[in-house]
């Protein structure tokens, strides 16, 4: 039977994840907490906090500062803790990613750059740097007339759950900028599948 990396995680794997070099903005934990509060209430958030404690890396979501830097591995630990606390599948993690830009202060501050698709594509590298100190993002394929583009994330290999979250996240940003009722996103290349980078393909009508 094929192993689903989202379902199984060992203590060694958790430590490997936590020790990934690089930092992430606190806002990612804020958006996680906001989503949990919305869906599962205060008890749900307490459950997640307990899970992070069980995983050996306690996250006190209420004390996180959106603009401060935190270990990038903690970002994945937060997602894994949430998934384990509620038994969620990829679908819920994707929806959480899609929700995050709605409440992220950094997104709201940076959205002034996302006023047109062309401009957004130009600003995307700057956008990534506001959130992560590792990896880089680019747009190697941009075909507005044919209604497709590719966003590439390089230099970041932590855990596949992050890819699921990012898919939802990028889709929300696309929904803000592309005037279309039907936008689709697919991860067509993934470092965890042996590819050299993550490629997210966007199609719209």
């Amino acid at each position, binding site marked *: 039977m094929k192993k689903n990396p989202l379902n199984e995680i060992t203590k060694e794997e958790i430590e490997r994840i936590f020790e990934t070099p690089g930092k992430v903005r606190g806002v990612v934990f804020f958006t996680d907490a906001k989503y949990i509060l*919305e869906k599962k209430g205060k008890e749900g958030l307490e459950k997640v906090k307990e899970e992070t404690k069980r995983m050996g890396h306690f996250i006190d979501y209420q004390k996180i*500062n*959106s*603009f*401060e830097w935190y270990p990038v591995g903690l970002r994945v630990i937060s997602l894994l803790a949430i998934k384990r606390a509620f038994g969620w599948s990829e679908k819920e993690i994707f929806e959480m990613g899609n*929700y995050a*830009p*709605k*409440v992220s*202060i950094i997104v*709201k501050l940076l*959205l*002034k750059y*996302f*006023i*047109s698709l062309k401009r957004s594509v130009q600003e995307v590298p700057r956008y990534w740097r506001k959130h992560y100190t590792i990896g880089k993002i680019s747009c190697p394929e941009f075909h507005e007339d044919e209604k497709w583009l590719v966003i590439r994330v390089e230099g970041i290999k932590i855990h596949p759950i992050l890819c699921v979250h990012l898919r939802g996240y990028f889709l*929300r940003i696309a*929904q*803000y*900028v592309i*005037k279309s009722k039907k936008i689709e996103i697919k991860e067509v290349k993934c470092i965890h599948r042996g590819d050299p980078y993550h490629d997210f393909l966007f199609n719209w009508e």
Partner: protein
Amino acid sequence: MSPGSKKKRLEKESFFREQLLLNDLIKLEAYIKAFWQFLPIAVCYVNPAFNILEASKTLEVLLNCTIMEIIGHNLKEFFPREFDFEALEKEIKEKKKITQKEIELLRKDKKRILVSVFALSRIEDRVLMGYFFAFLDITERKKMEKELRERIEELERFQKLTVGRELKMVELKQALKKAQKEILELRKKLSQKVKTQ
């Protein structure tokens, strides 16, 4: 001062400045959040594609939605289907602002409410960043205005009737007086005739 210690001092100063900026950002974030929570009127901020990026709590009440059912959605979704949203878009793009425009909004429960809309473009360095929209619920006010108008019309009709009746009464009184006078004169003539016979 050696180059090494100078470098350390500069790094320390840079770190200190960064911490100050970080603290300011944190305070600014808290201020912005508190301000949007406080706003006692229904306000939202949309991007140039009219996707709602931020909304006041009061807009939740107005539209009978949660804030998460509002943020991320297009403003057009909260207007009735037959409403010409493109015309509104065109108007705000051309005039840069809208003041006291009366339109209907559609709540989550499909109830229509009449609102007075205010809108303002947000421009930075000559580039359009988005729009602020404010909605004042005038449904009750319009209802009261309608009721008041109906009462006034009713009173005017009543007044016409009563005035008409009054005039008729005056006419009748005058006719009665005239008739009484004629009767008196007739009686006089009759009695005079009887006397002479």
